[in-house]
């Protein structure tokens, strides 16, 4: 037995893994009971650690210092934030830092993220197949695909390479149709995409999304692309077969046709019987029918009856399977809810910056609204609209006033009007637009003319995560306090019937007091001023926060 002779030796042997369990137990007990021994142990541990540090071979050193490296680099990147945004010229250590920066995400385990590469292709559209086909099939937008890549911490070159991979994934027809891709403002070779801070928001997440907007026109799909690798066998003889066409696929087939005059004529299912199916099969599916072969639509079974050579039938079946296997998407619909709120400055939320605004999640915004009302502030209007991704819309809350001058009558408009363009930008929804406010003259009893109306326009651009609310101030001359515009965005289901009437109650008009209502939820609470708010507009009850409509 190679037993230690002294406690010092036992401690020393501890660092050579040479103590047996009994010796370790003895050492443990002594350390726990005798502070002097503990001190000796600590000193020996320090010497051992320093020797390891100073004499360790280079090969293992890099591993040992990796945490320090990533912390150093992460700190440098975070501290520098946008300073690292654009580094001039290639960086020698770019790859190392690329990996290191991942740890700035607190949820990530650095050991795992060291090997994390890129994100995945995601098609963000709700499936058309889950819905009835659009009545106007030609207007179905089948063209938008998006690729979201987590390129945070990648060099631009690497991000570009990843983008190419993603393009090939998203373009299932192997025909890159990418119209453009956006790297925000990072285009410096060698630069590391380290952070992205949306404007006008308080989000400090360090992430970046590349958005690839792929314009994909189904009418341009070459016929050969529709079929899989298909090798005709020997002629199999003419047969007749029925191909059931799912309702979601029907508009796709019609759009695939390159005969717009036929497409436009197809408005009802009965027209499918006169649709030039033969042309479609020949030009788009590469299945030309010859004499003795035919195709027709059976409206009873909603199927195509094709009489053709077996090889052609097999080819069409294979092509149809491909189409059925695809998910066809219409463009997003985005619901934009607006709250126009007049509030006193002291009731603004903590940390609110009047220059940049702020973001709130749903719970925060609900609490904020409640707090506002409790403090006697007013929700002027709460209209909302649904637009397609990339479309513009207008929300108007106001009234028209006829004005006669010099024998001519014109209609003046008072109120708030918001022109807004809503667009998905990665995980955010960008809302860009302007907000016009036209308020009555200072002298309420004075004439309302074009010149006496007080107007102001506020331009805004904000990036809002789904289901969150962006708050910003708007110029509203003559209004007391601050006028806040609160925009809430959420993705709306495609083909959602936006015009479907809700069952919201209407406010109860106050007799002899036009423009004033009682809340249907709290009729005994007091009058609500809805002057200037058009009929049908949804407003929030200031007492209960529930929504009702202006009668």
């Amino acid at each position, binding site marked *: 037995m*190679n037993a*230690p002779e002294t406690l*010092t*030796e036992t401690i*020393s*042997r*501890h*660092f*050579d*893994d*040479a103590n047996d369990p009994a010796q*370790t137990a003895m050492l*443990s*007990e002594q*350390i*726990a009971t005798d*502070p002097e021994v*503990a*001190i000796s*142990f*600590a*000193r*020996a*541990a*320090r*010497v*051992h*650690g*320093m*020797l*390891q*540090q*100073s*004499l*360790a*071979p*280079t090969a*293992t*050193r*890099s*591993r*040992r*210092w*990796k*945490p*320090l*490296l990533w*912390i*150093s*680099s*992460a*700190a440098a990147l*975070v*501290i520098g934030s946008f300073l690292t945004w654009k580094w001039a010229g290639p960086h020698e250590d770019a790859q190392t830092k690329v990996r290191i920066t991942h*740890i700035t995400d*607190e949820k990530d385990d*650095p*050991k795992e993220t060291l090997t994390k590469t890129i994100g995945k292709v995601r098609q963000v559209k709700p499936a058309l197949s889950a819905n009835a086909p659009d009545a106007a099939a030609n207007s179905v937008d089948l063209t938008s695909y998006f690729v979201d890549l987590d390129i945070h911490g990648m060099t631009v070159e690497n991000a570009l390479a990843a983008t190419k991979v993603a393009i090939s994934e998203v373009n299932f027809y192997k025909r890159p149709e990418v119209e453009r891709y956006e790297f925000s403002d990072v285009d410096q070779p060698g630069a590391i995409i380290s952070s992205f801070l949306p404007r006008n928001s308080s989000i400090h997440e360090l992430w970046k999304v590349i958005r690839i907007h792929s314009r994909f026109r189904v009418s341009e799909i070459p016929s050969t692309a529709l079929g899989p690798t298909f090798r005709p066998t020997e002629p199999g003889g003419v047969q007749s077969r029925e191909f059931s066409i799912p309702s979601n696929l029907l508009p796709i087939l019609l759009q695939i046709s390159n005969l717009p005059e036929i497409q436009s004529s197809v408005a009802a299912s009965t027209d499918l019987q006169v649709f030039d199916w033969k042309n479609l099969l020949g030009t788009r599916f590469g299945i030309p029918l010859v004499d003795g072969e035919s195709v027709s639509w059976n409206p009873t079974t909603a199927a195509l009856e094709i009489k053709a050579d077996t090889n052609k039938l097999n080819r069409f079946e294979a092509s149809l399977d491909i189409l059925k296997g695809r998910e066809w998407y219409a463009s997003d619909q985005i619901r934009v809810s607006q709250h126009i709120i007049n509030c006193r400055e002291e009731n603004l939320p903590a940390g609110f910056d009047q220059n940049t605004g702020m973001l709130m999640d749903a719970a925060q915004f609900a609490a904020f609204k409640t707090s506002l009302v409790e403090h006697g502030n007013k929700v002027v209007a709460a209209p909302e609209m649904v637009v397609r991704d990339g479309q513009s819309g207008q929300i108007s809350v106001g009234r028209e006033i006829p004005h006669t001058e010099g024998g001519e009558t014109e209609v003046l408009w008072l109120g708030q009007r918001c022109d807004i363009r809503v667009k998905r930008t990665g995980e955010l929804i960008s809302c860009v637009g302007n907000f016009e406010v036209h308020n009555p003259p200072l002298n309420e009893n004075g004439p309302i003319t074009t010149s006496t109306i007080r107007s102001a326009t506020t331009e805004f651009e904000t990036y809002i995560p789904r289901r969150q609310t962006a708050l910003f101030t708007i110029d509203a001359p003559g209004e007391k306090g601050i006028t806040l515009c609160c925009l809430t965005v959420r993705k709306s289901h495609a083909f959602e019937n936006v015009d479907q009437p809700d069952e919201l109650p209407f406010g109860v008009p106050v007799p002899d007091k036009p423009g004033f209502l009682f809340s249907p939820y709290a009729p005994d609470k007091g009058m609500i001023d809805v002057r200037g708010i058009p009929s049908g507009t949804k407003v929030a009850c200031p007492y209960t926060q529930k929504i009702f409509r202006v009668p």
Partner: protein
Amino acid sequence: MHPEFLHFFNQCASDLRAYIGSVVRDVHAREDVFQDVSRTLWQSFDQYDPERSFGAWARGVATRKMLEARRKNARFPLIFPPETVEAILEAFDADEENQRLQESALALCLETLPEKSRQILHFRYQSGLKCERIAQQLGMNLKAVHQVLCRLRQGLEQCIQQRLANDDFEPRPVTTLTHPIP
């Protein structure tokens, strides 16, 4: 975000590593704990009380992590029971010295060692040999190797203390310790 974090962390990193290494047996587990602690320190630097020693805070975090790991996983290679780990933690805190000065002093002490001693240290630390292999390499018996290593460590420890106690001691840049400091 935390401009002073690196300063503090660099000061205590090797000491933190030494502390973890003294109570955790497996080298990979040590590395995991160190990384985990480093990340926690970075993330919760806002909670660091500058009145306290950063090293003590870091060791406290490390202790908590190790004991927690042991609670969750009985196979976590913690060498000592919790009370011993606590005692070692207190000893580290009570005997804390400027790490950079100690490293600088150690570098000078290493230069004064005879060739044979440096060779043993080279085998043990640079080549990473076990004591049995060192004994084979040098034609010594195992116990002698243990004793030599013990004496060397003890001697270096005393040498460091003496140099630090010397008013004329001027720390050298840590360039002799060739690890890269970012």
